[in-house]
């Protein structure tokens, strides 16, 4: 019926639309599976957690303390997060490693602006996932100011070792 009536140009247009639909669907299926590329529990590391329909999977509580260190003078100070973030942002950031890294970079930028040439930023985050005992989420010895933000694996995130009660 309709297939015989259409012009070659229209046929080409249809095939282009079909190609775009296939591309869109492939994208929709692959993006939510990218968490398989990262080691560890996605609810803990949050690597590949977004844009992946990971819904209602984690009850995560966390507390964080950032410390900025000036290697030139040996001085260091604890960060009052409320001076930089809203309580809402703090509660969303503390269980999420990627956001912790961003904030660490922000703190490093602020320190540089205040004349500290090579600031080091470390964080102690204790987190509890789905009722497990609290444990370190981020390696407290790593200088996050020196960790680049990329989409690769994040070895500065501690492995999930505590067991469910």
């Amino acid at each position, binding site marked *: 019926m*309709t*297939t015989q009536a259409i012009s070659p140009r229209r046929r080409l247009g*249809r*095939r282009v*639309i*079909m190609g775009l*639909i296939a591309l*869109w*669907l492939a994208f*929709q*299926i692959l993006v*939510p599976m990218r968490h398989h590329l990262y080691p560890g529990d996605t*609810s803990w590391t949050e690597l590949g957690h*977004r*844009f*992946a*329909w*990971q*819904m*209602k*999977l*984690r*009850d995560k509580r966390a507390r964080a303390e950032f410390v900025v260190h000036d290697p030139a003078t040996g001085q260091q100070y604890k960060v009052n997060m409320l001076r*930089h*973030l*809203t309580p*809402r*942002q703090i509660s*969303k*950031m503390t269980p999420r490693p*990627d*956001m912790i890294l*961003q*904030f660490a970079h*922000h703190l490093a930028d602020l320190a540089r602006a205040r004349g500290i040439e090579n600031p080091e930023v470390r964080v102690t985050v204790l987190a509890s*996932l*789905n*009722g497990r005992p609290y444990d370190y989420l981020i390696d407290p010895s790593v200088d996050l100011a020196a960790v680049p*933000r*990329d*989409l690769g694996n994040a070895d500065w995130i501690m492995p999930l070792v505590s067991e*469910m009660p």
Partner: protein
Amino acid sequence: MVLQKLEDKLFRPVDMASLAVFRIAFGALLLWDVVKFFVFDWIALMYVRPSFHFKYYGFEWVEPWPGSLMYLHFAVTGALAFLIMIGLFYRVAIVLFLFMFSYIFLLDQTEYLNHFYFVILLNVLLVFAPANRVYAIDALIRPREGPGAHTGPAWAVWIVVAQMEIMLVFAGIVKVNPDWLALQPLLLWLSPQTHLPLIGPLLGETWVIAVGAYGVIALHILGAPLLLWRRTRLAVFVLYVLFHISNHVFFNIGIFPWLTIAGTTIFFPPDWPRRFENKAREWLRAPRAPAGVAGE
């Protein structure tokens, strides 16, 4: 040839009524959400007051408007949602809405919500779908001629069906993990809610939580594909409506339950709103609405 058969299926003209109903719900729910941002002043809470914003990788360049312009941005976004709902200047409105909404979404990772991401995905599809041929002011101002006036290509409906199906099945797959199978975090969340009327006492029972946790996996992994099958569609739809309403009761997840219920109606035949209308008219003993479905 398989490709030819697929082409015939995808470009078969179908009634645009079901897509139009979805468009109306999409516009209405987003308008409602924008109104809530004003009423509770989440605009200041989330985008004006913070001095630092968490950025998405690759979108570090997205910056908030200064002060009152942020309110203007939300007002325009709400107005566009209204235009989408009534189907006036639809194509312009749906494209602009995509930019306005995505901009808000990209402003701060703190506010990431799966349902906002889902809104963006559906929005992209609605940009290409002729969702304004039925139940729209556009169709009144510039009526299309001929028997195919309120039809469009079947793919415009099927791509939304596919989007819904992918989201629902993934929502089930991700729950097949040791924590969920050990009933966490559902136990942590639901056990303290025993004060709720009627269902409250049940939530104290572990077996009830277990039925819920495993039931949700079954609903998504088995139920969602059964939405594609005519004989099981209505039953699964009813289960989904109950599921989304219980989510609304237990968790604070905004428009998501309503958006997914609206999205699930797209699994019904493309002319379901007309059949529904005719049924309603029969009950009221009024004249039938014109059936106008080419190729049905």
